[in-house]
């Protein structure tokens, strides 16, 4: 690790947090949380006036702060925030390659891989901020609008507590890291932001097709397919979904392995590419 690594991270943070993609990630993180929370609150309001078979519907669905937080967690993992995070990654690597600012870093006395490492740390901080903002907005707004967690339900179902939910958010940070690592590997090979976006779409389509094939094979009784299906990308990146049941260590191991693999490939390849 070069001795100036922490200063490198600092200036990468400056770039990541002042680019449109970085600011967009943070703003959308807050917006998604606010939007889903408000929507839940609205729906919960309709419930008040409704009745079903003469019984008031109120209390049939418990919309408390934890439910809201959970829905926001799902919403954050849908297309928009991962896309912005990927865009931030592609801008930091492929974008700088294309506009040739990467060259100005490559002439400095640091090994090539450490440039990617500094960018990765900065992007990880961006993801952590995104997670923290989403969680904070969802929980505080949810608490104000829908009240504190429904205690009895928390006792009844045990796992649906605020603390478990927070763990789910923390786990979604791991999915983000995998995305950053994959974005970085693609950047090193494709070297243009548009190219990275197109290739991630193709990769995700291929991944889902593979998943479908394996799932079908598993359903038809092929044992190996049942084991392999968890190794597909999107399935592995859903590691945070265990928040209300059981986190699967194997799933985290798979995400970690895929992340490490992507980083390794990116680092090795970047050591050999021309940065003109």
């Amino acid at each position: 690790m070069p001795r100036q690594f922490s200063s490198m991270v600092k200036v990468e943070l400056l770039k990541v947090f002042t680019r449109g993609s970085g600011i967009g990630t943070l703003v959308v993180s807050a917006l998604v949380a606010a939007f889903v929370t408000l929507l839940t609150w609205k729906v919960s309001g309709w419930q008040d006036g409704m009745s079903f078979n003469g019984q008031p519907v109120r209390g049939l669905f418990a919309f408390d702060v934890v439910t809201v937080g959970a829905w926001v967690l799902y919403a954050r993992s849908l297309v928009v925030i991962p896309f912005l995070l990927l865009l931030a990654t592609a801008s930091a690597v492929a974008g700088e390659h294309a506009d040739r600012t990467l060259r100005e870093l490559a002439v400095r006395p640091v090994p090539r891989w450490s440039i990617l490492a500094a960018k990765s740390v900065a992007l990880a901080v961006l993801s952590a901020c995104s997670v923290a903002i989403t969680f904070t907005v969802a929980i505080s707004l949810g608490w104000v609008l829908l009240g504190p967690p429904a205690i009895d339900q928390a006792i009844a179902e045990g796992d649906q507590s605020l603390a478990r939910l927070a763990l789910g958010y923390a786990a979604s940070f791991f999915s983000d890291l995998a995305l950053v690592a994959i974005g970085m590997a693609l950047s090193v090979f494709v070297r243009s932001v548009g190219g990275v976006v197109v290739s991630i779409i193709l990769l995700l389509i291929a991944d889902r097709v593979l998943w479908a094939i394996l799932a079908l094979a598993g359903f038809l009784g092929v044992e190996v397919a049942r084991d392999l299906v968890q190794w597909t990308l999107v399935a592995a990146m859903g590691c945070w979904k265990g928040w209300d049941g059981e986190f699967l260590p194997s799933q985290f191991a798979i995400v970690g392995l895929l992340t490490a693999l992507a980083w390794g490939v990116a680092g090795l390849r970047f050591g050999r590419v021309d940065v003109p």
Partner: protein
Amino acid sequence: MAGLCRRYGGRAAVHGLDLRVERGDLYGFLGPNGAGKTTAIRAILGLIQRDSGQVEVFGERHPVRQREEIGALVETPTFSEWLSGRNNLRIAAAYAGRGSEADIDEALERVGLRERAGERVGGYSLGMKQRLGIARALLGKPRLLVLDEPTNGLDPRGMKEVRDLLKELVRRDRLTVFVSSHLLAEVEAMCNRVGILDRGQLKAEGSVAELVKRLGGATHVEVGVATTDRPRALGVFEKLGGVEAMGEGEDGRMLLSLRGLEPAALNRALVEGGIDVGALVPRAGTLEELFLSVTSSEPGVA
């Protein structure tokens, strides 16, 4: 005196280039456009893979440690355009592992950008970006500057300022400067040593004085004869021997290199051949002639 030595050989755009820059040199890397100067500089800096060959900087062979000593500017310098000039220098200083705020101020001062350092680089003119690129190369007090056409995009005053700055860096700050250029006059005006690159090969290398001397004591003259007389004149030159046509001189005169032949004898031979000599201008051997004679002329030009 073997302070600094580097070799580079390989890659199609640059074949088997061997050159050596001494500590304290202001080395001019001269070559026409497309000669391979930028390619060679990228290879020296480790930006592109080398097919073969090694680079040694102050005895150091490790590419990362080599760059500790180098400040570089390659082609048109690039910046994070949405950030200020100062922030761009901060990025460079962070990666260089040296260069305090005071150093950044000093570098900005040297290129005359101190006042406008707070503005977005996106709003800078080409010349300002070029100067900011030079400031960035100076950051962290490198011992060797590798500059690729640093006067690109500058007006004549800016070009002179850069030349003076480089001379001062060598004289006062004891830096070694390796600077590429396609402008002969520029190299002649500031460099003590020159390497001439053409089509990826080093065609001549040495001090400016040495290179001029290498013209082998030949005398250079420009001869003005009517265009219609030219074929006959060439016949006369052939009979005389020791005359080499080197191309076009000023005002369409023929530029000739004479070996073991006095200009007066040439004049007499031409007149005896029935050719009117409109002008016969002796010329001191200059770097330009060497440059023209070692670099390939385009097809169609004599």
